[in-house]
Structures are given as C-alpha cells and as structure tokens.
C-alpha cells in the first residue's frame, strides 16, 4: 500500500507513439486494436474478451458516461482508475447489466462479450450474470452459512446434479479463492461471521462457483485492511489465468500491482487506456499524469 505507484518496475524508454495507443480515439476503429505491437502487453484482437463501443449511460436526465469505447483483454486484469464519480463503476455495471436494476438508468452503445452484444433483446440478464460474476465494494455474503453462500449460484443455475457434485463445486471454489484452509472445518457456520477479508474472498468464491468467464470487481479492497488487501491482490493475480478480470480501484498502487491494462476515467469520459506499465510511466494525457501523481482526485 505504501509503495509508490511510480516505483513499479518499469520497462524503460518504451514511450509509444500516441497513434498506436489503445486509447479512446484509436479504439473507435476496431482494427486499430491490433496496432498494439506484440510484446507490449501481449494483446491481440482475438484475445479481447469485452469490446465496448460508444457507451453512453444516463441516469434520468444526467449523463454519467460519454462515448466510452474500450477493449478488455481476456485472461488478464484490467484496472479502471479515476476520481470518485468519474463513471468507472457505472461502466463496470454496464458489463453485466447491473444498471438494469436502476429504473432511471439508460444505456446506449454496444458492449460485446465474445462478439455478442450484452444489451441484445435475446440476452437474458440472468444468464449474462452467471457468465459475468461480480464482487462488490463492501463484502456482501448472504446471511447464510459459508456453504450455502457458495452453493447458491450453482444451485439456482442447476450446475450440480447431486449433493456430492455441489460439495465438490463448493470445495473447488473455496480452494480457488484461497479460503478453503481457513473455513474447511466450519462450512456450516455463518458466512457473515468471517473477517472482512475472508468475507470478500468468500464472495469471490461465490462468484467463481458459477464458472463465470469474466469477474467484475468494484473496489474490492476499499473496505479491507492492508493484509487482507494483499491477500485479495494475490488471489486476483492467480485468478487471471482462468478469468477475464476487471477491477475498479481507487488505489493507484493497487492498479499498478495487479493489472496488465489500465483505463483512466474522468468526468464520465475515458481519458486514456493502455498497458499498465505505460500508463504509470508515460501517461499521454496531462489529466492522467496529474491523477496518478496525486495532484488531484
């Protein structure tokens, strides 16, 4: 936590020409995404899991997001940074259509996961959310047992045919979330009785249990102490081999530590995005620079 984000091990002297950057402007043309040279972020077109184009979000009359276009690579961690109220959480919630639950929210533009528009009429948000898991700012386990917390998703989606299979899923999910050793002997105790960090890992296990492809994390560590935060970050790093992870964070240091790609939002606009290393060493936009060096936000 105390680490200076700028002290991140940097590949020196890799300042990219702006026109090659995967930023708002460049991303308008899908072909430009491939313009990012291989060997820098290891991102190619086929590896993009989520592709957002001209996303506008309105809450009633108020516009919260302006023409956001962004590609999120598969099997890696993408961090959204920006000052409070900049729209990064709003954008995150568009990806699994959690904004549907807000009556006044209106989403325009397209967000595709594996080429399929999530806002299409044929897409059932219930199915979408089983593919796109979500972890919230405050740990929010159900007021049920640890087992029931993890088993709930598989149960409602019919992923397990028997008790044994369900137990196997729960165990595997808790193991993946690095929580198994701590809770194996008290699976049938209250999930809310765990510590904050454990609860957040339980919530991650709950999200993993339905085998999603994408996991969205909305400031998952903002309510946790540094040790619990470190554990979650470690977990995120392990999980990126299997999932496409998008994380919203207020901590530049965290973004620098866990993500491979970073997107900076400001006042509802995507200011710039690119490989994390670059964003932190050589931000193109002065606003980005000011923000990551702590001059505002």
């Amino acid at each position, binding site marked *: 936590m105390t680490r200076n984000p700028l002290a991140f091990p940097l590949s020196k002297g890799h300042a990219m020409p702006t026109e090659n950057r995967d930023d708002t402007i460049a991303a308008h043309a899908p072909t430009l995404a491939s313009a990012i040279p291989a060997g820098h972020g290891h991102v190619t077109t086929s590896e993009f899991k989520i592709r957002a184009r001209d996303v506008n979000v309105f809450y009633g009359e108020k516009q919260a997001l302006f023409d956001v276009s962004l590609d999120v690579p598969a099997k890696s961690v993408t961090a959204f940074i920006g000052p409070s109220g900049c729209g990064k959480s709003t954008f995150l919630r568009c990806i699994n259509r959690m904004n549907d*639950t807000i009556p006044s929210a209106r989403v325009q533009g397209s967000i595709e996961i594996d080429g399929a528009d999530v806002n299409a009429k044929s897409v059932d948000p219930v199915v979408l*959310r089983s593919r796109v898991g*979500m972890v*919230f700012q405050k740990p929010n386990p159900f*007021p049920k047992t640890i087992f029931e917390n993890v088993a*709930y*998703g598989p149960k409602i989606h019919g992923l397990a045919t028997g008790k044994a299979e369900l137990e196997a899923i729960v165990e595997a999910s808790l193991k993946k979330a690095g929580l198994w050793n701590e809770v194996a002997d008290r699976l049938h105790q*209250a999930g*809310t009785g765990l510590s904050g960090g454990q609860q957040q890992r339980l919530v991650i296990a709950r999200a993993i*249990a339905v085998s999603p492809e994408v996991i969205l994390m909305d400031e998952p560590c903002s309510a946790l102490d540094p040790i619990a935060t470190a554990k979650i970050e470690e977990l995120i790093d392990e999980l990126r081999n299997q999932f496409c992870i998008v994380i919203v964070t207020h901590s530049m240091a965290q973004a620098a530590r866990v993500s491979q790609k970073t997107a900076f939002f400001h006042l509802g606009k995507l200011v710039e995005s690119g490989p994390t290393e670059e964003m932190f060493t050589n931000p193109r936009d002065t606003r980005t620079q000011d923000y990551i060096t702590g001059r505002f936000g």
Partner: protein
Amino acid sequence: MTDAVLNPGAPAPKAAPLSAREALLKKRHRSEMWFRVQGIAAIVIAMIFLVVLVGRIVVQGYSTFETHTLTVPVYINPERVDVTALEGVNYDYIVAEALMKKLGVQDDDLGTTSAKIMDLTSRDFGFQLLNKLKADKSLIGKTVDVTGSVKADADLYYKGEIKRSTAEVDRKLDNQQLDWLDKLRTDGTVKAGFNTKFFSNSDSTEPEQAGVWGAVVGSAMMLVITALIAIPVGVLAAVYLEEFAPKNRWTDIIEVNINNLAAVPSIVYGLLGLALFINWLHVPRGSPLVGGLVLALMALPTVIIATRSSLKAVPPSIREAALGVGASKAQTVFHHVLPLAMPGVMTGAILSLAHALGETAPLLMIGMVAFVPGAPESFTSSATVLPVQVFIWENASERAFHERTAAAIIVLLVFMIVMNAAAVILRRRFERRW
C-alpha cells in the same frame, strides 16, 4: 477555523472572551438538562395514565373471577313432577322448597317467600334438575344434591358490592333475604370459589351465568379469517409494489392511497363491509366470516405498509449479491430479501391483527351486536367477539354485568398481550443475528 483556512482572504473570526464561552457552555448544559427533565416527565405522565387505566379495569373486574356457589339437597317431590311432561315442571319451586326447608321458613299462600328465595338462586338449578331427571327418571322421589351459582345480586352482596347499610328500598335484596344469605354462608351451604363459568359459558341474560367463551371463540375464528386474507394479500401486494412494480405515477397514486386507507376510520370499513359483503355477496351477517373479511380490509393497509418498510430496510447489498450471481428478480426477493424482512413482516402482521382484535365499530355495522348465547359453530353462524361483548355488557342495566365488562376487558387485554408476545418471539426466532 475551517472557514479561515478555506478563505484565506477573509478576516479570522474573533474568539469570544473566555467568560462568555463558559456562559454559553453552561447554557448548553442547562438546555440539555431541561430536555432530559421534559423527557422523563413525559414518560412519567404516560406511565401514570397506563397504571390508572389498567388499575381501574383490574379493580373493577377482578371480583368477577370469584363467585359463590350454593349446594343444596333437593327432594324431588313426586307430587310436583309430571313424568309425562318433564319440561313443564316448575323446578325452580322445587329448589326453593329445598332451601326453605334448609332455612326453616314456610311459604305463604301467595308464594311471597318462595319468590324471594328464587331471587337468590340462579335459574341454572332448575335446568340442572331437568337434565338430571331426563337422564334418570328413577330420581323422582329421591333427594339429590344440586350445586349452582347464587343469583348475581346475592353474589354482589357476598362480595360487599351491595351493602346492608344501604336503605332497604334502594337495594334489590331486602333485609330478610340478606339474613338468609348470611345464614346460608355461615352454615356452609354457600361457598366462595373461582369463577370457571365465566370462561366456559357464553353470553346469558343472567349475569351469574354469563361468560366470555363464545366471544373468545368468535374472536379467534374471526382473526383466523383476517389473518388468512390480510397477511398473504398484504405481503404479496407489498412485495410487488416494493420490488417489482415500475416506479411511475400510477404506483405513486397507489402508494398514497394505501397510506390514506390506513387512516380511514374503521367504521367506514364497517359500512363498506355491510354494502359489499352482506348486501351484495350475501355473506351471513354477524358471522365470523364477514367480520374477518371486514377486519382484513382494515388490516390490509397496515400489513402492506409494515411489509414495505421492512423490505426497504433490507440492505441493497443483499439484492446486488443475489443478482450478481445470476439470481432472477423473484429468486432474489424470495430467497434473500423476504426472509430477511420476515421479522418485520411478522411483527407488522401480528400487531395489525391485535389491532383488528380490539376493533368494535365496524363489527357493529355488520350486525355483530346481537345477543349470541353460545360459541359459533361455524364461520357462517352468528357470533359475538370480545370487544363487542364488552360493549353489550357495558350497556346492560344489571349491575353485575358491569364487573363482567371489566373482566372481559381483562381477557381481551390478556389476549392482546399474548399476541404481542408472539410477535416478539417470532421476531426473535426469525431474526438472524449473523
């Protein structure tokens, strides 16, 4: 201070002199003290009212729970009993004869003495004799022990409610009758005991025979109807309005109207029930069914409001958590939100039922005010309920009914305390302290 920091150009406010600040501090403490005193005074006043209310009812009503019974050996004189017409026999006179024998007095030709004696014993004695003879005709010519209540006025004399010091013309019993009563008590013919009849009997024209059983059964049956209608309809309406309904002008109008309905005087619901259920749907008047329907209408807004507020109190993070793992809206509500809201829902429902239990005015409108000498046999037969029983007895002219009024209120209060306790227990049970 902060202003000064934020506006460096503005002149720093001058600090008040120390003495002035101390004075201000004292003033603040004083005003806090004054507020506390007012609060305590308010509580004391409320407690006094409560104690006076409950105290008066208990003082007036507790004597009902004691009663005086009389046991007398009755010789069933074959001359007075016509075996072929058992119903037509004057059993009261046979009992009076037995008592006259016991007291050593003779009846005159006009029957003055026997009439006075009959004023002391309940009509119940006669009915008991009739039933005994119906069961076993061989009793004719034998002596049987009969136990029954003394008449309400005699009971009041024993309890000290009718005093000998009152002028003879002003009381219902004359000096001779009081002498007899004294004698009967001293020789052990009359005994004091717990008044079980008050709980096992229903309403009666004779106060000593009147009880609350019919009213208790009527109240319970009516509440069953009310609960079966008001709770499911109210909870589902609230869940739909709170969780599913779009927030637009129509739902706003519905919400305002529900809140208004909760404030509609209960007698209006009685009129509605009269017009809707009795005149239009022809539900039998004065039955637990129609009473329950009317009270369900009345309880519905309260149940909806209580349910909505407890649904609102469920943290949105739980909804997000469920939606986030792909639960549908209905799964989110019924698996997570409603179970968490359940303690509040149950409390609201039981409190609104308790309120309905004490309701009188709408029931008078739907003809529940009749004299019903028995517990209702079905949901459609005539019934009386506790608050209406209180109302009927309070209007009765006989003095003994007034102590029964207070006793019935005690029963009603106990009924309510039990319901409220159930609400608390249910709340504790459902409430998951994680």
